[in-house]
Every structure is written in C-alpha cells, then in structure tokens.
C-alpha cells in the first residue's frame, strides 16, 4: 500500500488529501490524547473527513525524509469486532477506519496502549491484525510502569505479536522524535514487512512480557497503591458523597464567582461600544439595528463565553484526573431513577449553570439514547439566565408575602426544574428515546495529574466552536427579534396603541401586533398583550424578558434595581381600569419560565450535537407546550382555589 510513499514530498495544500494518514487509535484512557499532543506540539485543528460528522483532531507533521503526514486522533474504542452504535465515539472511530480504508489513501494505524494494562490493549491489537491493519504499537505510561517497579521485554513482545513495538512516556520530550522515526520507518517499509501474528493469547503474551525490576522497593509499592488509597477515601460510603457534593459546590461557585464578573465586564464594554455607535450614527433605525440587534446579539454570545471556558476546564480536569468515573460510580443509582446512568451527572449539574456547555458535555455519555434523553431534558434545569426573570417576578408579585415566601419560591423553582426534568426523562425513555440502554460499565482509571496544556487547548477549542456554530445562530435570531420589536406593524397606529399608558414605539411594533393578536390564546393564562411582547422578546434569550418589560413600561436601568419596574407592572391596568395582573399571573408566569426553552443558544447547541433540526424543534415544541399547559393549570387551578 505504501510502497511509493517513502520519498514522496507533498507540499501543495490542495494535495492534503494525498498525504499519508497516521491514525492514532486505542482504548479510552489509554493516554492517546496526551501522545497526540506530544507528537503535534498542540498545533492541531479539526480535520475534514467525508462521512465523519464528529470533530476529529488532526495535525500535519514532517517526517524524516521530508514526507508530510497527517496525524489523526481517533475517539477511543475497545474493539473493532463487537457491535456498537454508530452514534457513539466508538462507532465514529470504526467508521473512520472503514471510510479511510475505502478511500485508498495511504495510512498507518498506530495503536496506543497503556503499558500498565497490556492484556487489555493487546486484545484490540489482535483484532487489528485479523483485519489486516498491522499497527505500529506504542505502549505509553512508561513513567508509571517504571514507578511501579516494572518493565516490559519489548523484544519478546514484538516476537509474540509480530509487530513493531515501542515504549514511551508522553511526558518525555524525546518521545516525539522517537515516535516520528518509528512512524516514518513503518510507512517506508510498508505494513507487509511485519503483518503481525493472529494466533496468540493476549493474557498469556502480556504475562510473559512483563519483567519485574529487581529493585522493586517500598516506595514503588506505595506509588502503586496511591489510587487504591485515594479511592478508599473518595469512594468511602459516607465520606465519598460528601466530598463529591463539596467538589460540585466548588465548581458551581466558580461559575458564579468567576464567570459573573467577567460577563458583567464584557456586558459593560459592549454597552460602551453601543453608546459610541449610537452617538456616531444618531437615532436612526440603522444605528438601532447595529446597537440593539447585532451588538446585543454579540453581547449574548460573549456572555456565555466565561461559563463555557470554566465548565470545559472543570470537565477536562475531572476527566483527565480520573475523578469523573468516580463521580459516576457514586451517583449511578440516583440517576437510574431518571432512566439515566451515573455518567449523566456532570451534564445535568452543568445545566444548572448553563445548558449550552452542558449539551456539549453530554458527549461523555456512551449510550446514544441516554445522551439524547439528557440533551432533551437539559433545557429544563434552572440555568443562571432564569435568575433575573425569577427575581423580577418574585419582586413584582410576591414582595407583599415577605422575604421567606420569596426565598422558598426561589428554591422551589430549582426543585421544579429538577422535577420537570425527571418527569420529562421518564416520559422520553418510554417514547422518543425508548429502547435498549447500555448499563453502566465504566473503566475506573488510575488517578493522574492532568496536563495543563491539554486542558487549555480543550477550553480554547470549546470557546471557538461555540462562537462559530452557536454564535451565528444567536446573531441571526437577535436580528430577527430586533425587527419584531423595533419595526412598526404594517398599517399599525391602532387606537389601542395611543390609549396605552406608554408612547414608546414598542406599542406599535410587529411584536405588539402579534402580542395583541394572540391575547385570546394567552388570556386563560392571565397574560395580556404586554406580557406576550415580553415573551416574544425573550424567545431568543429568557433574560431579555426583564429588559423588554422595562421598555414596555418605560422604566430604564431595570437591571440594577427591579423595584421601580415591579411597581409599574403591579399597577398596570386593563383598558377598563381594573388591575391587569394578580398573584395568579405571577405564579403562571413562573411556571411558564420553568418549562419553556427560551434560549436560542441551547437550541443551536442541540442542533450542533444532534446534527439535525428535528430534535431542537422537538425541544421547542414540547417545552413551550408544557409551559403553556402548566401556566394554564396554575392560573385556572389557583383561581378555583380562590386565590385573587
């Protein structure tokens, strides 16, 4: 296959698809990504492979002799023979092997295996040889192996499997040169030079290959049992869950304490920029579009950035350290109640800060149905964007009941989010995501210290992907909403508009027209056209509700102190002079905001993760339907109970 490649020099960019492909393949937790990072020096980008819809990192490296090869980091996989769902990471890796095999492009498989667990990795080696893939074997974690006082007889291992084998540590800077040389030699010689043997037992070969170093001292023994001792504490029946809760609380606090000020600073900067544009262009419609439409949308995108980065870093740290599997172990039983497994805890927890990175974090769920279920219920979790609206509603309708009632209601709103997620999950597991679920079988990797560079790279990637794929949708929706709120309804200037208490243009906007048109539908919920306009405005981002209500009721700076706006809303009158809203309206609105997926960013993130518009449309439909029904039941039910 590779006979002609040894001296081929590829420099033209359009010939990228002709470059020999080096696919790094191995079990999850084998240390593959660390080696990839060592090989490529962190200069990776997302590769483009026909038929592969999941991001696969690639990087071009120059081998000895000038050949440029593309190195691809495949998702982890356990087997190429067992049946897997195509939507999982394993399925993607398998499809990658099939597709690149069919393309006829020269390729070399490099199997990365954990030197401390040879038997497990060699099982996959034998499958690769059976398929005729004859990999170059790179055993990693050399440092850990030596720390345990063990070594590998490479010669014996090579003879047993009939393939070239090397032993490296990803932390060793010299590993790069050694691996590139071995890759070049393997590409030059061709797979036929050592096709590999198929008739050997992985367990027996692994046992024979290990050499116990003579000086296996007490220090080495202690290091070997570090994971066991750490687990004795971290998985302790009583201490383990407490530490777990503390860690999650810390993660949560980090999001609020670090992300909030950064977001506010970005917000202020955007506001100043908007002010400059307004002054430069005057009060024209174009200026308003630039400031309120586009800059506002960009502000929303930026507002998510600190959370995305913090949560990605946290997730990578948990994953790379090995604690993620421990957390899943601790909460698996609890999440079974929802029809999910222990792996889902991190996305669900992150959902309470922001559903957007949480939707992305569901990638750690191996089972595609479980993953889809988690994605579909995430928008129900009480995310931080709900807080301003909750605050306004509690101040407006429940200030008279005292601080305790407000505080209880606030906690109740979080519980309501979790409870509605539980109900939705139970329903979905019996309908839309019905079918077999993979029960939790989770590797518990040894604890390791995460590599900062790898974590930083993931965070940058996540931020960039969010900007590119979600940011564009937010901008588009922001522009459309601007048209709805700022452009007059064609043929408007209705008598009703002039009779209203404000004369702001919003009363004659398209949104106001729509809001009045749907009043018959929302009247049973206690919502009049003004609330409807607020709901239309918050379709793209729920926190916009506060600002839109501020515009409708002519209150500026509503973000700093909701009290004046709350008073205006409380005093709002119907055309006949009666109070427009009551406590029941407040309760119905709260029920609506608990359930409705008023977040285009989440919708766009779901679109990105599911690769279809079907599921985001489903989320919008079911959450709005549930929100309407819940608000209706709350408003009418409390009316029957005699609440004013």
């Amino acid at each position: 296959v590779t006979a002609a490649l040894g001296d081929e020099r590829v420099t033209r960019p359009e010939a990228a698809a002709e470059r020999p492909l080096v696919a790094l393949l191995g079990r999850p937790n084998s240390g593959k990504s660390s080696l990839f990072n060592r090989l490529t020096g962190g200069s990776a980008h997302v590769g483009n492979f026909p038929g592969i819809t999941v991001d696969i990192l690639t990087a071009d490296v120059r081998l000895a002799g000038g050949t440029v090869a593309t190195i691809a980091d495949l998702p982890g996989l356990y087997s190429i023979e067992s049946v897997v769902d195509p939507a999982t990471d394993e399925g993607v890796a398998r499809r990658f092997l099939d597709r690149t095999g069919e393309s006829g492009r020269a390729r070399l498989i490099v199997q990365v295996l954990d030197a401390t667990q040879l038997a497990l990795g060699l099982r996959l080696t034998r499958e690769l040889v059976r398929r005729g893939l004859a990999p170059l074997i790179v055993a990693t974690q050399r440092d850990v192996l030596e720390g345990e006082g063990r070594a590998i007889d490479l010669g014996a291992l090579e003879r047993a499997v009939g393939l070239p084998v090397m032993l490296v540590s990803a932390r060793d800077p010299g590993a790069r040169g050694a691996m590139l040389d071995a890759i070049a030699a393997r590409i030059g010689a061709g797979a036929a030079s050592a096709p590999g043997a198929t008739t050997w037992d992985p367990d027996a070969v692994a046992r024979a290959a290990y050499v116990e170093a003579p000086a296996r001292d007490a220090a080495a023994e202690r290091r070997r049992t570090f994971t066991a001792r750490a687990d004795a504490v971290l998985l302790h029946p009583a201490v383990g869950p407490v530490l777990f809760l503390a860690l999650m609380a810390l993660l949560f606090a980090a999001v609020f304490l670090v992300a909030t000020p950064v977001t506010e600073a970005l917000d202020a900067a955007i506001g100043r920029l908007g002010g400059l544009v307004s002054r430069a262009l005057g009060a024209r419609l174009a200026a308003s579009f630039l400031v309120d439409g586009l800059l506002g949308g960009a502000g929303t995108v930026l507002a998510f950035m600190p959370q995305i980065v913090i949560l990605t870093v946290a997730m990578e740290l948990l994953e790379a350290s090995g604690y993620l599997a421990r957390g899943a172990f601790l909460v698996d039983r609890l999440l079974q109640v929802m029809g999910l497994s222990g792996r889902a805890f991190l996305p669900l927890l992150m959902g309470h800060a922001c559903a957007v990175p949480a939707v992305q974090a569901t990638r750690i769920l191996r089972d595609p149905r479980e993953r889809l279920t988690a994605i579909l219920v995430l928008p129900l979790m009480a995310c931080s964007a709900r807080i301003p609206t909750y605050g306004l509603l509690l101040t407006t309708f429940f200030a008279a009941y005292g601080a305790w009632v407000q505080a209880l209601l606030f906690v109740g709103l979080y519980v309501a989010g979790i409870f509605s997620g539980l109900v939705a999950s139970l329903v979905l597991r019996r309908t839309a995501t019905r079918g077999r679920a993979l029960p939790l079988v989770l590797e518990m990797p040894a604890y390791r210290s995460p590599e900062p560079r790898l974590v930083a790279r993931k965070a940058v990637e996540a931020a960039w992907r969010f900007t590119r794929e979600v940011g564009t949708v937010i901008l588009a929706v922001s522009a459309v909403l601007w048209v709805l709120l700022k452009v007059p309804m064609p043929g408007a200037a209705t008598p009703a508009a002039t009779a209203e208490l404000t004369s702001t243009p919003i009363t004659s906007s398209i949104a106001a027209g729509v809001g009045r048109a749907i009043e018959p539908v929302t009247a049973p919920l206690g919502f009049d056209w003004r609330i409807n306009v607020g709901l239309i405005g918050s379709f793209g981002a729920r926190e916009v509700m506060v600002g839109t209500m501020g515009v409708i009721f002519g209150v500026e700076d509503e973000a700093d102190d909701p009290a004046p706006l709350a008073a205006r809303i409380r005093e709002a009158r119907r055309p006949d002079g009666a109070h427009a809203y009551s406590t029941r309206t407040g309760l119905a609105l709260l029920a609506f905001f608990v359930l409705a997926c008023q977040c285009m960013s989440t919708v766009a993130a779901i679109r990105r993760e599911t690769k279809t518009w079907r599921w985001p449309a489903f989320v919008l439909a079911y959450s709005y339907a549930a929100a309407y029904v819940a608000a209706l039941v709350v408003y009418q039910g409390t009316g029957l109970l005699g609440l004013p």
Partner: protein
Amino acid sequence: MVSNDSPPLPLDVNLSDPGSIDDTSTAAPAHGVRAASLAGPLAAIRHDEPVQVVEVGLDVELAGWLEAMGLGPGQTLTLLRRAAFGGPIHVRTGSGGELAINAALARSILVAPVSPSRRLA
C-alpha cells in the same frame, strides 16, 4: 446458576434470547472453575473471594462489547467495594484494570469462585 430473584435489567436485552440465562447450568465450566453449582451472580460476590466470569447472560452484542472492555468469560474479578443503596460494584480485573459495573448488569453476569490451585498459580 442465576437465581430467579435477580430481576432483569431495566431493558429488553434478554427478550431476544430468553433461554440465555437458563442455559448457564449446562454451560461448560470455564477453566479454573471448581463446579458450576458454586456459580452465582456477580452481584453476590464477596470481598475476600476472587471469582471468575463463567457466562455473561446478555445478548450477544452486549456480551461482545463487555468482553472487549475486559469483562468476558474466564476473566478473574476481585470485589473492591459496592456503592451505597444498591449502586454499582467496583471490581479489579485479572487484566489489571478496574471497572464499575451497574448492579442490574452484575446480576446478569454468572461467576464462580477461582479454584485454590489456580489462585496459587
């Protein structure tokens, strides 16, 4: 053999092959297993006794995937701990890995004590 009181997994894995669990009594004992009569579900494993997987009473696809993960017939397992309230069990495998296994799944995996002779070897 797997006792009747072990509830099936909350999934339809056994529906396609209802005979798979009952067949275990006639299955040939894996190497090192003393007698099939001593076999029981992995969920009932004791702390001080290493066991060996005799059979994974699940459909072929899931069993194949578990074997690839290192949880196939012949694998030796040692219990490290159980999670609270009927949560997963944490085992060390003879291949040098550690696995967390869902409790319902552990009820579908048949294991038998490793014979003393093999344990010494």
